[in-house]
């Protein structure tokens, strides 16, 4: 019976609350602090990376600002969708491929802060956890998968897998964070992990595929029309 309820949940929840943001107050204080501490080194490293970029070319500051705004706007806009839920691309994978992963950590953290302050989406106490899953794990996975598969010479495959796996690992990390905070009463953490994974999978896997596909075509268009930009990022 309980199992059926969990199964039912898997089909009811994601169609509405599909987002991967952990909302305000969800994580117990100890967990929230832990994810904050884990995120800070990456953030600081990202700040140094940005400073290096700005020293080379101060013009890039505006570009970084607009890339972050791009990620925010795509996640905030209600794009009409036939499935009912307002699915949207995040563009973090795209940014990670062009600007490098640690730069995206800082930009992603600021975007998440604005989502908390302008839309009440996510939260201040859970910011550390959200930054870790969305602005650290996602871009890092995207970037390294891209680097790895670029060695085979197939760019389309590399970009698709980068965006797809970046999205996927973001949601796996979120599920892990939730499972760690709310382990199953008698079976323990891994059952709970499986529960959260199952619930998010229904929307996140199709969304990740769509995101992967979109990133491929958008990056193709960018490479076609702005050669100097893409070459600058691939160093």
């Amino acid at each position, binding site marked *: 019976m*309980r*199992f059926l*309820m969990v199964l039912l*949940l898997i089909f009811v*929840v994601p169609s*509405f*609350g599909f*987002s991967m943001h*952990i*909302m*305000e*107050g*969800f994580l117990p204080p100890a967990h929230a602090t832990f994810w904050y501490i884990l995120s800070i080194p990456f953030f600081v490293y990202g*700040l140094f990376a*940005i*400073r290096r970029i*700005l020293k080379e070319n101060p*013009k890039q*500051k*505006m*570009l970084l*600002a*607009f*890339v*972050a*705004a*791009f990620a*925010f*706007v*795509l996640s905030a806009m209600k*794009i*009409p969708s*036939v499935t009912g839920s307002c699915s949207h*691309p995040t*563009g973090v994978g795209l940014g990670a491929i062009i600007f490098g992963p640690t730069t995206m950590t*800082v930009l992603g953290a*600021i975007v998440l*802060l*604005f989502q908390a*302050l302008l*839309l*009440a*989406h996510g*939260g*201040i*106490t859970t910011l550390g956890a959200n930054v870790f899953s969305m602005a650290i794990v996602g871009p890092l996975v995207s970037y390294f998968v891209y680097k790895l598969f670029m060695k085979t010479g197939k760019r389309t495959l590399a970009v698709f897998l980068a965006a797809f796996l970046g999205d996927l690992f973001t949601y796996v990390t979120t599920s892990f964070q*939730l499972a760690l905070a*709310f382990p199953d*009463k008698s*079976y323990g953490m891994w*059952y*709970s992990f499986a*529960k959260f994974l199952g*619930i998010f999978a229904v929307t996140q896997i199709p969304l990740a595929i769509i995101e992967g596909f*979109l990133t491929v*075509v*958008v990056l193709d268009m*960018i490479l076609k*029309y*702005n050669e100097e930009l893409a070459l600058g990022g691939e160093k």
Partner: protein
Amino acid sequence: MIAEKISYDNRFSNIHPLPKIIFSFSMLFLTFWFSNFVNVLVIVSIFFLLFFAKVKMTDFLKFFLVVVLFIFLSSLTLFFDFSALTVQRGLKVFVRSVAGTSCILFLIFTTPVVDIISFIHFRMLKDLIFLIYRAIYILIKVVEQMITAQAARFGYTNFRNTINSMKYLMYGAFSRSIKYSEESYMGLSSRNYNGTIEILKEYSLNLYILIPFVVEIILIALEVFYVKA
């Protein structure tokens, strides 16, 4: 984005942001310690405070209900385990989350984001955050116009079409971002931009700001003397 509009036009908006930040953050951290009953009172008192600040209640309610629905659906998973019903845990997290969000909503609805940004003292980060904030509003307008234009030309009608439209929207937004970033750099540098942006604002001091703190003290007293005792 409605919250940002309201934050410029209420009783608290011209008051120095520091007390408002202290109030909402201390309240936010207290919600972890409060019991369910007091957390519900937190939500009620935030409503009262926003009503007192002359925030239009219908606008606030619309915003609030969407957020609560969202929190409810996310916390639904916490009510069930494979082994047992965990109603108590689910309820506790749900109430705590709504209470915490209300505290942040108080800050959002009474303080313009620029005021909060002006509190960051790390130069590079402050500049970057301010520029991102500005870029968001430029891009929102552009993307809105693009979506309208696409919808008027039968975009987003079926699944294939939606993906195709989204492709052009993403590329459009990205290429506009590059174009606008170049233009705004030109605009700023022609006005002697040297890498720092100053935010100038005058704040007034008003005794109204004591009211949230009085409410907070009452809530703490209630928790200590009534619920815990």
